[in-house]
């Protein structure tokens, strides 16, 4: 049997990859992709715990389901926003969009 620790490590790896991508990608859509990775990492964690430790009313899976739904909603809104920004700034690269700079 695969110990639970392997799943958590997998989840952590995916999470950190997502973090790296969020900090490093110049394209905004690239950042969104990284965030999807993070969300999936969380999901794996939840489902693994559900399987290995047992949760009342299969809470883990229900939670993971909800996370998927939320992620979908977030991606939708995010992408629409990106398209809107693209229309205004004509560029999608984060260095070019810096209204907050000193």
């Amino acid at each position, binding site marked *: 049997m695969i110990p639970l620790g392997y799943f958590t490590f997998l989840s952590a790896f995916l999470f950190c990859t997502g973090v790296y991508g969020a900090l*490093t990608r110049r394209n905004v859509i690239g950042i969104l992709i990284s965030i999807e990775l993070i969300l999936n990492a969380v999901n794996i964690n939840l489902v693994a715990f559900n399987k290995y430790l047992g949760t009342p009313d299969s809470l883990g899976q229900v939670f993971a389901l909800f996370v998927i739904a939320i992620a979908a909603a977030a991606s939708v809104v995010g992408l629409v926003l990106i398209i809107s920004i693209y229309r205004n700034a004509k560029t999608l690269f984060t260095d070019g969009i810096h209204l907050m*700079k000193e």
Partner: protein
Amino acid sequence: MHIAHLIPLFPFLAFLINIFAGRRLKKASAWVAIAASTLSFLFSLKVFQDFKAGAGSYDLGTWLVLAGKPLSFGIIVDPLTIMMLFIVSFIGTFILIYSMGYMHDDPRFSRYFAYMSLFMSSMLGLVLADNFVLLLIFWEGVGLCSYLLIAFWHERPSAQAAGLKAFVTTRIGDTGFLIGMLLLFFTCGTFHFSDLRSLTGPEPVLTIAAILIFMGAVGKSAQFPLHVWLPDAMEGPTSVSALIHAATMVAAGVYLVARCFPLFVAHPIALQTVGVIGGISALLAASMAVVNNDIKRVLAYSTISQLGLMMLGLGVGGLSAGTFHLMTHAFFKALLFLCAGSVIHSVGIQDIQKMGGLFSKMKITGTAFCIGTLALAGVYPFAGFWSKDEILLAAYSQHHPFLLVVAFLTSLLTAFYMGRLILLVLFGSPRSEMHAHESPLSMTVPLMVLSAFAFGAGFWGAPIKTAAVEGQGAHLIMGISTLVSLSGLGAAYLIYIRRLNLLPISVLSSLEGLKQLLVRKYYFDEIYDYLFVQPCLRLARAAFDVDFNIVDGLVNFVGFATQWCSGFVRRSQTGFIQNYLLIQVFGLVVLIVWLLKI
């Protein structure tokens, strides 16, 4: 009824009224001042009456507790004080009347009267004070008023400089006065004048204290070496010079010495110092007056010289002689200054080399001027003769031959330069274009009143004194002094009217260097500038540099450092979200490590 302490209050009230409501009162402010001064005079008469009936000094209350002893302050009433009260209030009133005419067109009319009232108030308080501390308060008051009035026309830089010079020079004297006073207190434990007779203390300390107190008198009475401010003080209006720098304030120094006379008598060295300084000042100033061409400055030097004579009189032990001369001098010097003011008011210039032949156009002023001159020169029977004679007699009878000779020389020079003055101003032919006219009544009436006193004031003290010293060479002295005065006047007449040269040309030309020395006032101003003023200025500049560069530099540096730091830190605000995110994740890592591993 104790009313003496009200005497200084009336002029003080006039001061307040004129300062606050002067703009509205305009010409009426003069009347306020004159009314207050007249009231003071009337009250002084009453005080005199009370004194003859037996009333004396009294206390007004306790003020502080110093070193365990309560300091009470009160009023002293004795002949000296009463004489001073009379002089100040009487002459002051007439000078105020005169000022109405003299200052008529001045834009700061009411301010002038306010300052004059304040001065009179301080002077009256000064002579009424019964202890050193109270006297010092009024002493400073008269000093302040002197400064304000010298620099009255403060648009003129020369007036500003003169005012400052007067203030600083008298300040030097005042410092000595303060130290002497405190020395006296710390060794003998008292500030009161009534205790001066019975002082006990270490001899050298008390002598030093006395000399230091005398230093205050030296400053105020413009004696050597602090005489430099009085000629410059002529920048102020002439009526100011008459009141302050002829009759009253400069007499405050003499008054101080007279008041502390028991102290000085007990320490012969101090008394000798008084006499010597007086003698030096008398001769020094008289010599400088001989070559001066400004009508007011001649009179200023004359004042210094006469004050020196008074100090000389006090210094040889002649208390009554010195104070008698103080009284007569007040009258005829005030008269002379007012005459000079009248002349200046009518012809507009002050250089006597440009005047001449004014007598025919200004009869009243001219007569008054002559009377004043004769009084100052000490011609019998004018007032000055009696008082000067007293001083000479005192010097003779107390066996001070050197000071006696000095006094005679001074009288000779006095007669000479005063003769020179009136001969150049009033007689002879006019040396330049002048439009002279007689002054208005407000100016001539005081002249007439003061002339009467300049003539007759001597008789008050004369019969008493001559009777006392009959047969002790009094007649000899009187004779020599008359001879001296007449020869001085005669020499002036010969030189300036007849244009004779009394000395051969060769001698005259070799005296050119001496004349230069006198004209340049013995280079006193230059010496003082080099010794004191310049180092002081350099010190001030150094202090300014320290403050400007170091202190301000430090403050500016703090500001600069803050700016630099903020500029440095500002670079973390990149506006780039992923930078912020990076720091957040790093913070998360740190947080986890810290919270879970420790």
